[in-house]
């Protein structure tokens, strides 16, 4: 079986994604979970590059690995969470979770297998992932959702600040 370079890249990236994703779940220390999640996100960014979605790969690295994960790491270090503060899970609960998760997986894969084969048009232009194409679509067809997302960000910012600050009765 001869593998092309692209297939080798796909398998290596998939292996990194799945292994580090499993380590996110099963590592005891929350800081290690965050670091493994960053590895997962970088592998997914590699998948985006393989799929010719260069702009999304860049945004993914900037937003997820850059902003969201720093936020997670900051909160974990501020709350000083480590292995000793980790909540204990009962053994039967872990057992039930693993069984439920492992039965969910074949369900999804089986649903994929039994679904009708999608007739794919042969992809012609491979530059749909570039900033120029995406920007044209974003600012013409999807202009209203784009403006609405700014309202979402404003409300999220107000909510985060309100929730995060100490109440005035507490400080007085």
């Amino acid at each position, binding site marked *: 079986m001869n593998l092309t370079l692209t297939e080798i890249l796909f398998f290596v990236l998939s292996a990194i994604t799945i292994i580090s994703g499993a380590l996110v779940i099963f590592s005891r220390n*929350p800081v290690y979970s965050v670091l493994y999640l960053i590895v997962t996100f970088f592998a997914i960014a590699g998948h985006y590059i393989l799929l010719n979605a260069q702009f999304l790969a860049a945004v993914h690295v900037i937003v997820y690995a850059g902003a*969201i994960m720093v936020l997670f790491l900051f909160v974990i270090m501020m709350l000083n969470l480590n292995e000793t503060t980790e909540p204990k899970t009962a053994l039967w609960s872990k057992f039930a979770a693993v069984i439920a998760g492992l039965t969910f997986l074949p369900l999804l894969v089986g649903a994929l297998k039994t679904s009708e084969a999608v007739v794919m048009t042969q992809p012609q232009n491979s530059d749909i992932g570039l900033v120029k194409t995406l920007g044209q679509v974003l600012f013409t067809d999807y202009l209203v959702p784009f403006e609405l997302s700014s309202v979402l960000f404003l409300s999220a910012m107000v909510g985060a600040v309100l929730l995060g600050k100490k109440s005035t009765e507490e400080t007085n």
Partner: protein
Amino acid sequence: MSAIQIIPIEWYLTLSAILFGMGALGVMYRKNAIILLMCIEMMLNAVNLSLVAFSAHHSDPGAQVFVFFIMAVAAAEVAVGLAILIMLYRNTGTTDVEVLNRMKW
């Protein structure tokens, strides 16, 4: 030669399903609320990956714009979720979701 001509879309969908299943397993397996948020991020990423695969195979940039919006919503969700977590930690001194069982009654 790019990946969309070589790698069938079923492989990407299977990888996405595995990633989503692992995120769901993590939500059931862990009790730390921060790890639960991280597992939700993993499930969102699985959906994003399948959307990008569909977009590349259909030569349709609409799905990639959709992924862009999902990332924006995820960022807002994490900001609010972590603020709620900090408030929870300030009130209860732990991030264990089992403490939050008072809404059952």
